[in-house]
């Protein structure tokens, strides 16, 4: 799995780490049971503070995507094959999605274009691609 971050970008680094790992789980690059590097190792590889990696991993743990054990380290706990999400999760997510779609609408993107992007991204995840639209 490739983890690409922008250290000087506007998005906090821990959030970028969390986002990249969520994307890797969605595309099947990091299936259930697959291990992630130890926080110190990933911190060295990205030349960032290890607390930052910890924060990113902790977000994923709170979301139920990651299990962090003393011996096994960080392991992916759920993916698309693990069944439907926990109750209440969908409402939270829809709230965040609303903001993302509102951005596109506010910028003048036609509704059919927005839907096309959504369809392509989801198709990219299920086909094992990176889900990025052209």
């Amino acid at each position, binding site marked *: *799995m*490739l*983890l*690409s971050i*922008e250290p000087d*970008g506007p998005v906090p680094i821990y959030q970028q780490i969390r986002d990249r790992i969520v994307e890797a789980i969605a595309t099947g690059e990091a299936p259930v049971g697959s291990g992630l*590097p130890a926080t110190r190792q990933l*911190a060295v*590889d990205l*030349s960032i503070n290890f607390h930052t990696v910890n924060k990113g991993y902790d977000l994923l743990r709170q979301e139920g995507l990651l299990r962090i054990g003393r011996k096994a380290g960080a392991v992916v706990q759920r993916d698309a094959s693990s069944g439907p999400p926990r109750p209440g999760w969908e409402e939270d997510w829809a709230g965040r999605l609303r903001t993302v779609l509102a951005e596109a609408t506010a910028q003048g993107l036609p509704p059919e274009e927005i839907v096309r992007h959504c369809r392509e991204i989801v198709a990219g995840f299920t086909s094992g691609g990176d889900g990025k639209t052209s």
Partner: protein
Amino acid sequence: MTTGALIGYLLVPLFGVFLYIAPLVSRPTVQFGVRVPPAHISAAVIRRERRDFQWRSAIVAICATAAVIAVGGHQAWQSRLILIVEFVADLGCFWLAHRRITKVKAAENWFAGQRQTVVADTSWRAQPQPFPIEWLLPAVAVIVATVIIGIVRYPHLPAHLDRSGHRVATSPVSAFTVVVGQLYVTGLWTWVLALVYRSRPDLDTADPAGSLRSYRRALSAVARAMLIMLACVDLTLLLAALRLWQIWRVSGGAAALVALPAGLGLIAVLTTSVLAGRARARTAVTAGAVDRDDDRFWKGGFAYVNRDDPAVMVGSRAGFGWTPNLGNPATWLFIAGLVTVVAALVIIRFAVGL
């Protein structure tokens, strides 16, 4: 030929050639320690500085070699002084090119509006590169041979040993110091190499998977060359021990042969490092992704100081090699430990009158 002459005649031209080539075989996106975005790798200032550096470092190498020939290299200190002057002059040439490129880069704002990224490949940790432990065997074999020869020879040694012209009383310490030296050099460099194996690979954002593959190949080649060099250094120490124990009686010019294996080992490491650097310098540069502009962490283009980076060792910017992160307290702890051990060895040496 004396050891001083060997240092002069062998090392001065060798370092001259190495310091001439090393900065030229770095990746296209890192020139004289300056991070360059793909759009500017053919900038006029880079082409000019590469050409000028070649001229300057060639003149430095020729002058240093001429100086060694002129003084005859009979005194070891003269050769060492010329070697230090050559190194500092080459560093000056590197720094001059670094400063000029940095100036143009800042004036033209090369990284303006570029999305700068850092990439990590988790497969580096999931499938770590195996340490070539079997290549340590030659060094271990030489140390074991030295110990066995020493033990067999020790009862037959005279009451005093001749150590570089000084007579010292024969004792286990005075007779076996060379083994301590072998263990110290071999242990220290194996440990440093193990640290390198745990450090991060130098990845290109444009082609992370390809650059990881070439990094693995280069690391493996340089590590093997370094382990062979350790065997060569241990062999040099074994030859020195054979002289000390009066098994191998040589004098005059032939005495310089003692240093020959270590010299050949050094040539092997430098050559492998340059070849590995050249292979990586050929990596294709695509305009899509841009590496992070991390020049602010590289002092003078060659010393890495980054307090936020937990790495102890990082890839160096000229040729193929590694350099410590001087911003990490663990690095200073390591350097302090190194200095303490060297100081302790020197104190012990004086205390026991060696």
